[in-house]
């Protein structure tokens, strides 16, 4: 059976060129030295890390010493949030984020609110899943020290106006003669598609990782603007300027740098190709299958994201029927987790729970072809029809159709 993988927002296959670049640091023949060691193999490993750091810094248009390597998106987000909030405890205790952030942002924020006495404001999104920069500005108080808004959402793929928000925050700081709030963005989903030039984004901290850009899993970056102090999460041998102790994942760092270089080089052409495929896919689903709805803004969305609610059926059942056909997608529905709650992102759009439960995310990638999409379009209507025939639920149009 032919397999069609449409879950690139969860994980991407490793680019063979990235694998090739990493190989030398895995095969145990030559480059196995500890980067902290004071001998030739150690120096070689160290050099490779610094070269990778420099390459990444060039793409972000920042200084190499502003790049910190971590174990992935989750650690970078946690380091940014916990690290900055704790370091600035005497400057203020108010944090701002949005209702649609990844759990790697929301959970440390909620932890600080519940356990460490910080105040937390969560900015709502429009029904299309977009954050209004003015709302962020309005939420800023004199004791606000930190704002974190994601660059692109991992479920519905909406692209947030980060540069605008960054601009407003910079203006606020100027007008109020304040260094705060600092502005962080989680760019894990965006880094394969959007420009990461820090000087244009006006962010102070930025997260991305390898697993979404055809790089290795378990490696990530936190960009930290020079001068920002944060409290480390890991203490030890003082690696990464003491901000993130632990022997570096040399192969991962090399792979991450190579992966970022490749996706950023190819992004204009690849985005163009994916947008055509994405829009074709969306149009055809909505045309061929009744009672379906696109979640998230039509155009302010990642080139690879298609997020659809199929009314009257439950997402996991649909996912498993597609799985049986060799089509791999993802759902934010309750049954994939331990709670009965559907995805917080879909609920944040103001959709009723019965609609949220029937949502699927298709995320396209480099290997996705028009033939793949056509195959899915052939399979999908029948599968939806079958599951609807065994469902007792008939959700009324007024609950889900956006006029």
């Amino acid at each position, binding site marked *: 059976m*032919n*397999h*069609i*993988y449409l879950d690139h927002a969860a994980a991407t296959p490793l680019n063979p060129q990235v694998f090739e670049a990493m190989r030398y640091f895995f095969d145990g023949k030559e480059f196995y030295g500890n980067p902290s060691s004071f001998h030739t193999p150690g120096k070689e490993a160290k050099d490779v890390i610094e070269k990778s750091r420099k390459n990444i810094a060039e793409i972000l248009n920042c200084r190499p010493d502003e790049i910190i390597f971590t174990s992935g998106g989750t650690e970078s987000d946690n380091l940014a949030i916990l690290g900055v909030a704790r370091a600035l405890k005497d400057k203020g205790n108010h944090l701002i984020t949005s209702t649609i952030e990844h759990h790697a942002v929301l959970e440390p924020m909620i932890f600080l609110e519940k356990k460490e006495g910080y105040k937390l404001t969560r900015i709502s999104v429009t029904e299309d899943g977009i954050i209004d920069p003015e709302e962020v500005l309005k939420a800023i108080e004199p004791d606000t020290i930190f704002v974190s808004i994601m660059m692109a959402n991992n479920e519905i793929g909406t692209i947030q106006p980060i540069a605008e928000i960054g601009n407003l925050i910079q203006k606020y700081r100027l007008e109020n003669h304040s260094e705060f709030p600092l502005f962080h963005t989680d760019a894990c989903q965006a880094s394969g598609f959007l420009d990461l030039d820090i000087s244009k984004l006006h962010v102070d901290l930025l997260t991305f990782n390898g697993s979404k850009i055809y790089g290795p899993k378990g490696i990530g970056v936190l960009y930290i603007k020079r001068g920002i102090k944060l409290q480390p999460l890991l203490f030890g041998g003082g690696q990464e300027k003491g901000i993130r102790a632990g022997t570096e994942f040399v192969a991962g760092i090399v792979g991450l740098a190579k992966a970022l270089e490749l996706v950023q080089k190819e992004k204009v052409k690849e985005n163009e190709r994916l947008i055509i495929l994405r829009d074709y896919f969306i149009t055809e689903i909505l045309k061929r299958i009744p009672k379906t709805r696109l979640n998230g803004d039509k155009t302010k969305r990642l080139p690879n994201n298609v997020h659809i609610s199929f009314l*009257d*059926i*439950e997402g*996991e*059942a649909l996912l*498993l*029927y597609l799985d*049986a056909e060799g089509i791999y997608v993802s759902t934010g*529905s*309750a*049954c994939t987790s*331990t*709670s*009965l*709650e*559907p995805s917080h992102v879909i609920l944040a759009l103001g959709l*009723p*729970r*019965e609609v949220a*439960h029937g949502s699927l995310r298709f995320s396209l990638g480099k*290997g996705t072809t028009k033939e793949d999409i056509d195959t899915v379009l052939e399979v999908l209507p029948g599968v939806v029809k079958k599951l609807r*025939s*065994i*469902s*007792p*639920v008939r*959700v009324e149009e007024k609950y889900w159709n956006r006029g």
Partner: protein
Amino acid sequence: MNHTSPPIQPTPDVTNQDKTKSWFYSDIVKDHFFEPRNFLKKDPEPGQFNGIGTYGSPACGDEMRVWIKVDPKTEKIIDFKWRTFGCGSAIAATSMISVIATENGGKTLEEARKIRPQEVIDRLGGLPARKFHCSVLCDKALRNAINDYYRRVGFFDKIVSEGNRMIDKIMKVTDEDIEKAVREGAKTLEEVQEKTKVGVNNSSVLPAVEELIRFYKEKYFNS
């Protein structure tokens, strides 16, 4: 994309008989999920069934509806059809209970009332622990259909409400509290929550609460 087996096999929730490929559910669950037995294809004709029961709500992720045809002489279930909105195990569990209730000439209503989730789970060859709640709903839908049959034939003494159970362990709300709230005029989940605080910190109990509200509304107001 071609699939070869990785050198280190991931551990599945439930191991398949052949142990070659992991799937999330047992082979029996898979079979009932992809080839559901006894689901109601066409909307029923008047008189085709004499008991209908519902449990859960789509807002909470699962809803089951059960239609039974009971032979009035033997009180055996001679036909059992269903529809389910829910995940893979919810669909498979309803399919399985329809088989259990109708096999060997059909269970009597008293026997059918005793079917418990564990029996359904066992017959399915096990379910992942986090999926237990799904199969806990189909037996309740069946018991509601049995009550509905007795209500229709006027045997009110045989209607068994699921009495005095702790519904919300956190807020300490029993079904009796919910019954009282409904009798005092609360008609919606929100109104019942206002009176009892049921499920305000524990949304996993909401399907059960909504079902009880429906049950007591039928019981007291016939609506």
